[in-house]
């Protein structure tokens, strides 16, 4: 095998070198024990349903049954809200530093049980273990750490001295980042002295139920956190419940609008974090290798099940061909498959329903005349899978340029001038996020000021930090989560007379 000279061949095509195959590196799943049936977590205890039913959740990568869980009915929601109301009286009056101590304890337990959370999240959601392990779970713990620090410093939250909690928060979260969205909701609510009733998504209830165990382990006072699993009706009961003072929702724009209609006329405070169709704008002077990484991370992170995904690539027309060539070459290295393999980059789509939606929108893209490229890879026979897909030749009027696909599908459009980039980026009913790629600092600042999006990433994408407020413009919702701004959603200024 030794060689004397460097026999440098003349071109890449002369080389016939087999790919160095990475052997399977499966994450052991025996770190989690999943109960066959799951009750509701109300008032610090596991309680059976009064008027609900039972359904099941499956592993989207295999379609194997994972567990049965409860679909909470109206009476269950009543009980959960009542438990939260009872707990509010003492929790809101607790010494703020003590509230902070509980949150620190929860954060540490989440870190200690990080492996368990990561495996369970990948089993129930289908996302690669690399992401649940390196992004979801650590960031979720970080949200608790961050808000633990705020608990006794709320006088400096920007609402004047002595801001007050709102009461009982009804929180409904989506299936794309089950544990992370839970922490975005619960951590600030608790830090500010509220109590919560949280409904996890229908297809991903398991990490929320594990989180309930963490609350017990942390000796959190009963009723401060209540978890009611269920479907859309359960969520509707919760957000329309008279005993709820604050509604926080992350999910689709359609449901968000319904919630806004439901709570209109009540004195409930609402924050909505809804859909998006983010523009990821690449200028010709961008650091191209990193821009390509940013495009990949922008749309193929979490199978594109990201509300702030960079689903519209706006690329300056003089580098369009180069960017598309580099991008598709890079996409060739993506590894699609078993979410629990540590080398998997693209996992399973969360549900057959979502897979159907993605498939339909991609068919629409082809029918409207855009050019489709997809990753040449085998798909597992069971489970819900979709190949990373790139559409070029997309026009602003195409469905795939306007509708949120919520899947691993990128639409590539071009622009000629910065003005055109801004016009196209803003030409959407959404306004959650945007990305700008350029080596020119002044252009970043100018673009950030003109893009109507709640988050503008410069030379990066899909970066989440508890200190940074996150939220949308227009149909992407209102209110902010994270940072000092996020606290305002769970506090009201002190008033002399209430």
């Amino acid at each position, binding site marked *: 095998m*030794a060689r004397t000279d460097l026999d*440098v061949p*003349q071109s890449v095509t002369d080389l016939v070198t*087999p790919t*160095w195959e990475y052997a399977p590196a499966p994450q052991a799943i025996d770190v989690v024990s999943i109960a066959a049936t799951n009750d509701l977590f109300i008032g610090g205890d596991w309680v059976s349903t009064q008027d609900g039913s039972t359904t099941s959740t499956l592993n989207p990568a295999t379609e194997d049954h994972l567990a049965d869980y409860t679909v909470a009915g109206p009476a269950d929601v009543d009980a959960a809200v009542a438990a939260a109301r009872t707990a509010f009286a003492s929790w809101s009056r607790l010494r703020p530093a003590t509230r902070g101590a509980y949150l620190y304890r929860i954060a540490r337990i989440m870190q200690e049980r990080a492996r368990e959370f990561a495996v369970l999240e990948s089993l129930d959601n289908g996302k690669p273990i690399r992401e649940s392990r390196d992004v979801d779970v650590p960031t979720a713990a970080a949200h608790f750490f961050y808000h633990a620090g705020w608990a006794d410093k709320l006088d400096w939250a920007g609402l004047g001295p002595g801001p007050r909690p709102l009461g009982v928060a009804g929180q409904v979260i989506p299936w794309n980042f089950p544990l992370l969205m839970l922490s975005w909701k619960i951590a600030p609510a608790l830090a500010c002295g509220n109590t919560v009733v949280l409904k996890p998504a229908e297809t991903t209830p398991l990490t929320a139920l594990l989180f309930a165990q963490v609350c017990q382990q942390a000796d959190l006072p009963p009723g401060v956190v209540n978890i009611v699993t269920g479907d859309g009706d359960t969520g509707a009961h919760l957000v329309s419940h008279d005993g709820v003072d604050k509604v926080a929702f992350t999910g689709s724009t359609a449901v968000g609008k319904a919630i806004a209609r439901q709570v209109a006329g009540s004195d409930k405070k609402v924050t909505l974090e809804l859909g998006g169709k983010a523009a990821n704008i690449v200028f010709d002077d961008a650091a191209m290798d990193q821009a390509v*990484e940013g495009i990949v991370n922008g749309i193929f992170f979490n199978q594109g099940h990201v509300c702030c995904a960079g689903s519209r690539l706006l690329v300056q027309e003089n580098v369009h061909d180069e960017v598309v060539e580099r991008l598709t070459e890079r996409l060739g290295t993506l590894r699609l498959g078993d979410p629990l393999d540590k080398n998997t980059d693209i996992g399973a789509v969360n549900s057959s329903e979502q897979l159907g939606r993605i498939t339909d929108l991609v068919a629409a893209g082809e029918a409207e005349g855009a050019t489709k490229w997809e990753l040449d890879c085998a798909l597992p026979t069971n489970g819900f899978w979709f190949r990373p897909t790139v559409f070029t030749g997309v026009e602003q009027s195409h469905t795939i340029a306007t509708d949120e696909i919520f899947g691993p599908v990128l639409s590539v459009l071009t622009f000629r001038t910065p003005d055109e980039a801004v016009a196209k980026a803003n030409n959407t009913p959404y306004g959650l996020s945007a990305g700008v790629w350029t080596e020119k600092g002044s252009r970043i600042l100018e673009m950030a000021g003109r893009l109507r999006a709640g988050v503008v990433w410069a*030379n990066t994408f899909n970066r989440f930090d508890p200190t940074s407020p996150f939220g949308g413009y227009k149909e992407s919702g209102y209110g902010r989560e994270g940072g000092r701004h996020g606290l305002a959603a769970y506090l009201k200024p002190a008033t002399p007379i209430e």
Partner: protein
Amino acid sequence: MSLTAREAAPPELHEAMRSEAALRSFLHGLGGVDAVGLEARVTGLATRSIKKDAKRTGIDLAIAMVDLTTLEGQDTPGKVRALCAKGIHPDPTDDDCPSVAAICVYPDLVATAVDALGDSGVGVAAVATAFPAGRSSLEVKIADTTLAVDAGAREVDMVIDRGAFLSGRYGQVFDEIVATKEACGDAKLKVILETGELATYDNVRRASWLALAAGGDVIKTSTGKVSPAATRPVTAVLLQAVRDFARLTGQVRGVKAAGGIRTSKDALRYLVLVQEVAGPAWLTPDLFRFGASSLLDDLLLQRTSQRTGRYHSADYLPMA
């Protein structure tokens, strides 16, 4: 810039070699490297989990890519002979263990290495051009190179003039590489950029292209005498350069990461970079090398433990 220099470049780059000014605008027009994004990508690739067959194959590949190196003032012919023996049979108890790619020494010890290696197939590489600082006249550098090549070195590891590069005298650096390449004759030329002194990834990218355009067969991170030596992000920039150079010119050149790579785990992470940044075509000792001394021992320990299930002490490895 000399006319020879311009002719040495691939046709696609002739325009860029027209003048010192053209060369400068070419190098500065390469497009930047975003340090945060680069390092994030490299960190992400480090999470690749290399197990079982992949690990066994990777370790053997890494062994075959080692330029087993000794570059000490205290080097003796005896030490070089011991190193050569080890390079030929890294694991004397296992005939299936690959030989290293080459033995890398100072020019005065090349003859010893050539003699010791015989027809084993292990290459002889020599550092030259006033290694490691490169602070001498071109005449001395060429004489140094000639000394090595005449003694039988088949690969020459030259250093670039970092002072000239950092002060923007790209033409001078280019001409020196061309002159050294000429002095190499048939011997392959590895161009050491000494990335630890170039300070920015943008500079590393420019130096990479400069060296490739001037005819370097391999671009190499470091001498091993300056800290930091090879890092994975810097190596990724070199790998991007050879990948893009091949795309532009059709010519495939190599990369050598040298200095500071001591563990098998680290070596496997480099191989992942090679595969996923440059492409699987670069996963061969012809196109990727490790410049290292202690790395080989760790590779051998890991190799044995992969095969026997037991991890034995370094006392079982013949020292060199």
